[in-house]
Structures are given as structure tokens and as C-alpha cells.
């Protein structure tokens, strides 16, 4: 009995020793297997959505239209369900690839794992939406069509939507970039020169609270065309907000920073360019991102109220024909587009304000 126990003990010890030497490798291999399961879990939701679309009986009376598309000179015929499955497959591919890319980086692995449950739920939600919207039509129609029908809008109106999207982008780019330049410019003047502050700031404070669209009647009558009218509205909504915060950032620069710079030999322009403006940068970006949200609102509203194009215009037009699936399609594009713009601004902000990293709580 005693010897048996000793033998077992020593065997365990030998095993442990071996385990220690192989520990690192075995650990990471086990981790990899676990991570592959995570990837599988992430994409399985979308896979279920595909299965639902393929095998769930089409009970409700919905016309599954067939579209012919010209892709790279090939004439391809596909139904709206095919297009929907194509989109789901693309999502599976994207998430699987991003999972494989995250494999070797600890931080991105953690991030990917954290998102797994949500992405799975997204797939399931699409499957339920497909059942409720298209297969059984449980939701009120025509307001809540299924996912395949939303995708139908892109098949039916693809190039027209793209045209309107470009129109919106042009409007936004022209208006917002002007607004940022003018906002930062006036903000610096107000923040730096007490005289400008005295005369301009109260005007800015009072007019700044008025939503930009309130000026629309003037914009539409006084400006030469509707495009410049909309640009004008976006400019004002961005301008006031950004100018306000820029001025605040310039004014809050500690006196000690100016004194240090002056002693080191800085000129007056140097004080503005290399002390006041860098100090105001966090506030300038706060202004830019909040102005950005308002610019989206102004953009869509002015498109709905008097533009010959744009996503807002497309929504309005589709509503007239009760084509709510097209309205939804435009909303999806807006969500993607605006998130993308926010993301780009966020990246620029993060890069510019990298000196703050770790100072501020996230």
C-alpha cells in the first residue's frame, strides 16, 4: 500500500515536470483551440440565419422577385433571397477572417472574444427578423419588411441609391469642412483677442442655440441654389459649436505655459500656434465631434425639405410610394456611413491627442 502510494506520487511528479517543460506550448495550443471555437460561435448565428432563409417555409404571400444584374460583363440572375444569403455569407467571411487575423495578438483576441456573443445574437436576430418579416409576415406591413426585402431595395435601386449617397457625401464634405475651418478660425480669434471676444462672443452665444434648420427659409431664398443653401446650413451648425469650444480651449490655457514659452524665446504668433492651439486641441475635437452629430441631422433634414438629391431626399421619395423597404435601406446606409465618418474622426482625434493617452479615464 505504502509503496504503491509512493510510486503514484513519483509518477505524478514526473508528469508534472514534463508538464512544466511543455507548459508554455500546450497552454497556447489549448488557447488556440478555444479561440477557434469562439470564431465558430461568432459566425454560427449568421449560419443559422442562412439555414432559416433556406429551409423555413415561405408561408406568407411575398413575391420573391428575380433580378438580373450585370456583374463584370456577366449577366447574373438572382432572387432577393440569394442576395440576402450572399450578404450573410459575406458577414461570415468577414468575421471569420477578422478572427484569424486576431489570432496572434492578445488584445485583439480579447476584443474579438468579447464581441462573440453579440455577433452571434446579431445573426439570430436576423433569422428572427427573416421569419417575422418575410416568412410569416407577423409584423405590420408594409412598414416592417424582412431583411431580404430591404436588400431588394439595393437590387432594384442600386445605382440610384449610390447617386443619392454621393450627393449626400458631397454636401456633407463641403459643409462640414467649411464649418470646421471657420469654426476653428473664429474660435481662435475669440479666444485670443479680448476685443473680438467682447463683440463676437455674445452674438455667437445667442445665435448658437438656434437650430441651423431654422435659417432654412433665408438660406433657400437668398442663396443661388439649393446645394449652397444646404451647405450654408451645415456650416452654421458646425461653425457655432466648434468656435465656442475652440475659444474656451484657447482661454483656458494656463498662464504658466505662455510664460514658459515667452522665456524660451517664443514670438506672439508662436504663442498662438505652439501653445494656445495645442492646448485647445482636446476642446476643438469635442466641438468637432458634437458638431458632427448635428451636421448629420441638418444634412438629412435639409435634404428632406428641399434638395434634388441625397439620402434624405431618397427617403422622402420612397415614403410617398409607401416603399418602406427602401426607407429602411437608406437608413441602413446612413447608419453605416455616419458610423464610418465618426470612426475616421475618432482615429484622427486619437492620433492628434495621443499625448493625453493614459491621462484621461476612458
Amino acid at each position, binding site marked *: 500500500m505504502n509503496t504503491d502510494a509512493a510510486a503514484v506520487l513519483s509518477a505524478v511528479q514526473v508528469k508534472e515536470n514534463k508538464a512544466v517543460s511543455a507548459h508554455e506550448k500546450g497552454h497556447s495550443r489549448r488557447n488556440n483551440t478555444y479561440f477557434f471555437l469562439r470564431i465558430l460561435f461568432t459566425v454560427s448565428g449568421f449560419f443559422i440565419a442562412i439555414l432559416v432563409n433556406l429551409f423555413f417555409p415561405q408561408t406568407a404571400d411575398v413575391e420573391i422577385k428575380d433580378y438580373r444584374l450585370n456583374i463584370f460583363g456577366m449577366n447574373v440572375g438572382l432572387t432577393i433571397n440569394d442576395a440576402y444569403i450572399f450578404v450573410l455569407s459575406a458577414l461570415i467571411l468577414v468575421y471569420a477572417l477578422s478572427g484569424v487575423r486576431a489570432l496572434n495578438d492578445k488584445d485583439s483576441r480579447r476584443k474579438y472574444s468579447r464581441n462573440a456573443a453579440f455577433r452571434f445574437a446579431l445573426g439570430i436576430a436576423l433569422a428572427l427578423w427573416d421569419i417575422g418579416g418575410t416568412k410569416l409576415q407577423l409584423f405590420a406591413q408594409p412598414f416592417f419588411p424582412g431583411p431580404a426585402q430591404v436588400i431588394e431595395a439595393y437590387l432594384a435601386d442600386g445605382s440610384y441609391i449610390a447617386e443619392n449617397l454621393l450627393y449626400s457625401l458631397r454636401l456633407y464634405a463641403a459643409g462640414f469642412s467649411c464649418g470646421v475651418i471657420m469654426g476653428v478660425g473664429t474660435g481662435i480669434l475669440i479666444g485670443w483677442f479680448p476685443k473680438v471676444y467682447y463683440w463676437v462672443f455674445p452674438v455667437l452665444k445667442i445665435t448658437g442655440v438656434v437650430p441651423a434648420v431654422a435659417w432654412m427659409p433665408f438660406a433657400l431664398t437668398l442663396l443661388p441654389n439649393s446645394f449652397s443653401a444646404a451647405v450654408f446650413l451645415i456650416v452654421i451648425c458646425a461653425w457655432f459649436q466648434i468656435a465656442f469650444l475652440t475659444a474656451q480651449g484657447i482661454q483656458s490655457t*494656463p498662464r*504658466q*505655459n505662455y*510664460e*514658459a*514659452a*515667452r*522665456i*524660451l*524665446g*517664443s*514670438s506672439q504668433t*508662436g504663442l498662438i500656434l*505652439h*501653445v494656445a492651439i*495645442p*492646448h485647445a*486641441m482636446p476642446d476643438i475635437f469635442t466641438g468637432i465631434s458634437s458638431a458632427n452629430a448635428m451636421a448629420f441631422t441638418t444634412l438629412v433634414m435639409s435634404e428632406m425639405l428641399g434638395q434634388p438629391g441625397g439620402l434624405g431626399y431618397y427617403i422622402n421619395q420612397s415614403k410617398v410610394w409607401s416603399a418602406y423597404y427602401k426607407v429602411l435601406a437608406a437608413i441602413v446606409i446612413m447608419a453605416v456611413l455616419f458610423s464610418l465618418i465618426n470612426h475616421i474622426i475618432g482615429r484622427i482625434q486619437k492620433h492628434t491627442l495621443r*499625448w*493625453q*493617452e*493614459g*491621462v484621461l479615464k476612458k
Partner: protein
Amino acid sequence: MSSSISITDVGRVYTDTDGNKVTALQDVSLDIREGEFVSIIGPSGCGKTTLLRLIAGLDKPRSGSLTIDGRDITDVSPERGYVFQQGGLFPWLTVEKNIAYGLRARKVFKREREKVSEYISMVGLDGFEKSYPHQISGGMAQRVAIARALINEPKALLLDEPMGALDSFTRSDLQDKLLELWKHKRITMILVTHDIDEAIYLSDRIVIMTPRPGRINRIIDVDLPRPRHRGGSEFLAMRKEILELFRLAQAEPQPEYMI
């Protein structure tokens, strides 16, 4: 490269937040020799920082005059470097860009890189070139501030309690660094401090100031040989003498407490 600074009958009055006139400095006269290390000590409110700001050119006196090498001090100048108590660095610039600031501000682009790395090594911050001020310790930040001031090759370096916010180990470390730089550069150093040991350890002369109104109470020559030993008997004797002076100054009856 150094210079003599002379302060003659300088007075400075300011108005506090309640609208009362406060005499920050009254009839202050002091001559600082070339290459001298002078410390100004005194309790808070004695006008020692005010005096340093006047020498820097950040403030103007109400009466009297300040000159450097015979020229009136009218404005700030890179020839009088300044190190603030804390937080004087630009948080948006890296260590090396903070140090290079003076060169860029004066548009001296010649050999900028070499000079910056020379000064970084001088204060012992190799490897921290790309760090931002919030990523380094308080002691390191003050070294950056000193290097930033010295890169302009000033004739005098004005230090406003640069070690006030540091722990005692970092502090004595930085004191030795400062002495080393002073010996190496032979520039005039004027240090404002409230630390008696620091003043004795570093200076040739100690200017003792008393508040209400801020004026010079006594100037003490420290003729101890360097390197000085903080525990030495002469050191301790001098420490006692200065402490005694403060006690006497505080024991003086003050009008606001009289009945």
C-alpha cells in the same frame, strides 16, 4: 558665460482678491555676482517668488530698478532661463520636443538634433526622448524643465522651488545634478526655496526674506567647502542659525494681532 544681476530698492505692490493693497516687496536691494549660486528662502508670502519673477522679466517693479550686466530688465529673455515649481512642461510635446522648444522658438535649427540629445544625456534622461510629460516622474519632469531652460545657453538660471513637490530621495539626487550642471556651465543660479538644508547645501549665499512686507532680513555667506556634508557640524550650526532667525522674525508682534 554668466552675468551679474543687480537689484536696487525694488518695491512691488499688488491688489488681492478683496481689493486690499498688499506690499509684496519693499526696498529690496541685492547684488548677485557672476556665476554665483544664490538661494532665496523665507516663509510663504515673503515675496521670494515675486522677486524671482521680477528678475525673469515676467513682472515689472513699482519702484526701484533691476539690471543685468548694467542693462535694465524690461522683458523676458532667453538669457534668463526659468524653471517653474511644477507643471511647466508642455504636456502635448514629448520630452525631446519640450527640450527643443527654445531652439525652435528662436529659430535656431542648426545642429538641433545633436544639441537636444546632448542635453538629454546631460540630465540623464536617455531612453525617455519620446515619452510625454505625464508618463515620467516628477523628478524627471524637472530635469526636462532644467534641460529645456539650459539649451538656450542662458547667463542665469532662475529656479522657483523646482524641488518643492519631490520626495526627499529624488530631491537630493536633483540637487547634486544641479550642482554638477552649475559647475559645468558656470552660470549664475538663483534658487527660490523653503528648504533650509537645500539652501545651505547648494548656495554661495543665502538671502533670507521675511513677510509683511516682503523684505530682505539677512544675507548669509555660506563658506563651507564643497562637496558639503549635510550632517557636518558646520552645516548643522548654520542650519540652527537660520532657524533661529526665522523664530525671531515670527516672534515679532504683528499689528493685526494687537488689541
